[in-house]
């Protein structure tokens, strides 16, 4: 599984106000991280429908990251909190269909945490590389 040259497909859905800004800050600070993650911007992690996650895994994603503001910092008061609650449910569903729930991660990165964004990127890629290709990605071939 642990093929050195294998590039995992990881999709991130991140909120406009905290994590997207943090990711931009990481850019400004030239913090280097692996290029395996593609980000989709939404206004708030509250927007993340569990179906988006299921769809991504069905399409063959090897990993998925949802990243928003810290609790108490949500631009929309509590969207991140509601999203985090949904993540427990989705992780359970993933386990039930035989996917390792470590493929789905939720993190909280603020607009001033560029360095943390870089670490999250490193860590997510490392975790997914350890887990290897998603068993569901076979169906996409």
């Amino acid at each position, binding site marked *: 599984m642990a093929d050195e040259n294998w590039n995992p497909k990881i999709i991130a859905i991140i909120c406009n106000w905290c994590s997207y800004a943090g990711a931009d800050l990481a*850019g400004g600070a030239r913090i280097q991280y692996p290029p395996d993650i593609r980000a989709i911007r939404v206004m708030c992690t509250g927007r993340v429908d569990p179906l988006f996650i299921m769809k991504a895994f069905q399409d063959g994603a090897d990993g998925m990251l949802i990243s928003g503001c810290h609790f108490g910092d949500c631009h929309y008061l509590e969207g991140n909190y509601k999203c985090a609650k949904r993540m427990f449910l989705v992780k359970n569903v993933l386990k039930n269909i035989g996917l390792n729930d470590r493929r789905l991660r939720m993190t909280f990165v603020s607009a001033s945490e560029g360095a943390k964004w870089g670490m999250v990127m490193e860590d997510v890629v490392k975790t997914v590389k350890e887990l290897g290709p998603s068993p569901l990605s076979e169906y996409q071939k």
Partner: protein
Amino acid sequence: MAEAKEQPRIGVFICHCGTNIAGSLSIEEVKEYAKTLPGVVVAEEYQYMCSTPGQSIIVDSIKEHNLNGVVVAACSPRLHEPTFRIATQEGGLNKFRFEMANIRDQNSWVHMHDWEGATSKAKDQVRIAVAKARMLEDLEPKSVPVEHAALVVGGGVGGMQAALDLASAGIKTYLVEKNPTIGGRMSQLDKTFPTLDCSQCILTPKMVDVGRHPNIELMTYTEVENVEGYIGNFTITLRKKARGVLTPTEAEARGIVGGGCNGCGDCAEVCPVIKPNPFELGMAPRKAIYIYHPQVNPLLYTVDFDSCIKCGLCVTACGEEKKAIDLDMVDTFEQVKVGTCILAIGYDLIPIEGKKEWGYKRFDNVITGLEFERLICASGPTGGKLIRPSDGQIPKKIGFVLCAGSRDNTGGVAKPYCSRFCCMYSLKHAHQIMEKIPGAVPYLFYMDIRSFGKMYEEFYYRIQNEGAKFIRGRVANILEDPTSKNLTVYTEDTLLGRPLSLEMDMVVLAAAIQPKPEAERIRQMFGVSKSQDGWYLEAHPKLNPCGTTTAGIYLAGVCQGPKDIPDTVAQAEGAASAASIPIHIGEVQLEPYFAQCIEELCAGCGMCVNLCPYGALDLVERDGGRQVMEVTEAKCKGCGTCGGFCPGGAIKMQHFTSPQICAQIDAFLLEGGEQ
């Protein structure tokens, strides 16, 4: 959606950003790849897409190729989305027919040494953006009126300046201060550097102006309790803390004609409760009924209900005529409606006793810079006579420890940043003791003297010439002689390269500063982010230093980061200017990312109604008694929490619709395979 589906005609415009992007990935490859994507009819590249010629390329291409969607692959939408939306509009399209691929901040800058990886990621990013652009719809921004009033939180020099500017621009301004008086930190200072102006002398005229200005409603002893709404329409709930004392106006409202507090002080004279005075940093006593300091504005006494024993002596002393004291007063709440808000809540000193090696609070003669200000101030506890706290003697050798907890990475209470004004006030302190105490010698233990402002360096030279001793080295330890209470300062003279110990009569710590404890609560109420060090985060450190990411909220003074008085006042004026713009325009455009209910799909379960943090959703009855959800657009902020949950997929989040997001996911994972 129902009308005949138009064929997508997308233009992709790729920016080099000089070498910022072009230096780390192959623009040519991305461009050629973009041309192969479904729906793309033209792909162009340019050195700087945001420049006037760059934007012209977009405008011209829209017309020439009859485009109905624009994708720009460049920097972050947080930076240039507004620019390119205007270009899209100039080309004749609805400005929401635009999508951005962030191939700089989130690609070329973070994968600088991975040409292949970055190029491949850029292709994916363009593909994802094109997938969304294919599905974009025309949207109309919603215009809302702006309340012709502003709120300023914090009545220090920054808050006062901001309030004065707003009020002078014709805007009704509420100035909220939690202490019984305005004035803030600056009213605790004796002199200001480098001009040696008396702090109170230059501050009191401003305090008087604030008190007199017809457009300022000064609300002292008041705190912000709750914030609702958005730019243009904030509803602020204020807690007016029980002062225990009536103003003349309040007295009149109670039918006591000619009554109310006139500041005579008869009450404080008879009050039997004695507590430390926080304005004097605990170095002087204060009664339970008090004025905060001699120059308070408004001149009103205040009852400290935490220490008041309700003996009623003050009520008797106040007399039947004034009847100004009401010991049964309770907090009251008031709501104000404002269009914009400025936060200017200031700072605190760090608890420097946490740096145990310097012995603050253990050794009597180790004090902070702020305590020094009070001791040297004519209105201070000693009437301006600098004495040693241990024995009341006049100190002759005084050590100043600079960077006390600033520029210090050792953790604990220490802060890694420069507190920015301690070098200058320590120089000023040195000058003051040499001026006031004949034969006194100040010793300044410093790392670097940061005298960066106008006339600051000249002031530094002046203090050197006056005879202050400068020792370049951090103070490792301070020990006290138990009998004489003298202090021995252990340090290293790094210029001579040798350890040093010097006996001092007194040591002043130029303690670092930190955000106030209430900063966190206030920040969360107003929706303002914080920097890593806890100071409020500005919208852009260089280009928008007064704004925040929450529209309509602006920052002034130290709450955004350490700064001295000139910088605080300058930022306050900037914030006031920025905060007055939407008010003077009279309306703001909100991005139309509202939720919409697709009534055919809505089962009327009402889950979304409970989820909405703004109360924007309601269940309404349609023909035949069927319940469906209805959105009040004015209340909806577009977070999408309802849309992320709706089990029936009946909520459409404009500009972030489920089909659009699914198309983006598919575009990445299925390599552009059709959805």
